[in-house]
């Protein structure tokens, strides 16, 4: 389980996150939603240690990630998998080398075992035939899938996805959502997804946290989100014409 307590972050005079708390349970796909500039990505970066918040705690199964010693932080990082917005694949490495990279750097596994594990992960995301291609030779959707394969290659306990559907067509988006949900269920991972995609919200959002101007405005599930009385949340959800028409 991941627990965040009272996360506060400011950039200069501007408050980005103001007292965000929440729990993300194993086997659940939890969504952090909100409009652009509401602090979603900053919260994610605080959770994975790329940004240090001024106040607050991030607990991974009770272990404090922000103030823990180096060994604790290292151990937690090894249990983390992150899918970045653009995939963040290493340009100079092939798809297979990208997936194998964490194994090469962080484990002493024999080469054959590393290859087997990397190929299994590529197979799991349906890209076993693209193993020898370079990141520049594959599509945006494939990059995201390679990013997922790399994120799960170390058997993570916690999976973070930063806007996994951005820049993808609706069909590819659905495939990526399904893949994230399947992997979460299969490996009983604690998954946290940052998104503003309404389809994702309805498809995979078992638990949803809504951020508005750096504050947590609402928390619930995809089945209760449409019954909320929070004006900012309703404005966000029904900005989509299709949903507005459905509601009407």
């Amino acid at each position, binding site marked *: 389980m991941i627990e965040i307590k009272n996360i506060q972050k400011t950039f200069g005079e501007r408050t980005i996150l103001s007292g965000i708390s929440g729990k993300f349970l194993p086997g659940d796909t939890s969504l952090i939603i909100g409009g652009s500039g509401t602090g979603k990505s900053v919260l994610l970066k605080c959770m994975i240690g*790329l940004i240090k918040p001024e106040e607050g705690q991030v607990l991974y199964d009770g272990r404090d990630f922000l103030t823990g010693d180096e060994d604790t932080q290292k151990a937690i990082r090894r249990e*983390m998998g992150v899918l970045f917005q653009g995939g963040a694949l*290493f340009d100079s490495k092939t798809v297979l080398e990208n997936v194998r990279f964490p194994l090469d750097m962080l484990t002493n596994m024999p080469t054959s075992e590393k290859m087997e594990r990397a190929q299994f992960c590529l197979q799991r995301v349906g890209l076993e035939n693209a193993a020898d291609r370079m990141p520049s030779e594959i599509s945006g959707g494939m990059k995201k899938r390679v990013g997922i394969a790399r994120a799960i290659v170390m058997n993570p306990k916690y999976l973070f996805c930063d806007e996994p559907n951005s820049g993808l067509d609706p069909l590819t988006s659905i495939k990526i959502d399904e893949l994230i949900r399947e992997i979460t269920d299969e490996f009983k991972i604690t998954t946290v997804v940052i998104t503003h995609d309404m389809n994702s919200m309805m498809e995979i959002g078992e638990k949803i946290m809504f951020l508005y101007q750096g504050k947590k405005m609402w928390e619930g599930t995809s089945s209760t989100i449409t019954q909320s009385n929070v004006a900012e949340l309703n404005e966000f959800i029904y900005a989509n014409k299709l949903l507005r028409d459905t509601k009407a």
Partner: protein
Amino acid sequence: MGVYSKLVLDECIQIGINSVFIVSIVSTFIGAVTCVQTAYNLVSPLVPLTIIAVIVRDSTILELAPTITCVVLSGKVGSNIAGGLGTMRITEQIDALEVMGINSSSYLVLPKVLASMITFPMLVILAGFLSIYGGYIAGTAADIITPEDYISGLRSDFKPFSITFALIKSVVFAFLISTISSFKGYYTAGGALEVGQASTAAVTNSCIAVLAADFLLAQLLL
């Protein structure tokens, strides 16, 4: 082979081997031009022609091979390092390394610095040879000097410390170019425009640092 040794080797190819062509072209022509211009300025019949080779040799070893080669490399290698690291920064590849628990500066910057410090002296030696050879070709082809006079000039009053001085300069310049360019690239923030600006700043700052260090080393060591 360890991960870091392989990275250093890859960078040696990227930084060193891939720069051989430009270094060869630049140094050969610089040697040729030095020979022709020196001959043009030597109008007195009292000055022996062998002095042309002496001047080509000394100016090549002391200044042209290490400094001009490193200024050229600060353009080629410096922009490559800054552009590469800047792109990695804005496409979150450096963040990906950090999240995995890998020390990104040690993984990305250290091999570049080491590879530069290994390959730059080799490139400077190559540049020295080619520059002197360029002078020989130009001098003999244009009937400025005979091959015998040129070789005799090269051998006269040679100070071996010049070689040591050139190599010390190449190592210092390599360190300056690789660290300045890495710093500019690693701390890029923004988008493609900022990557371009980082590359330009890397080249400009490296050139200034090389020229300033050139003066300081000359004052200290000669």
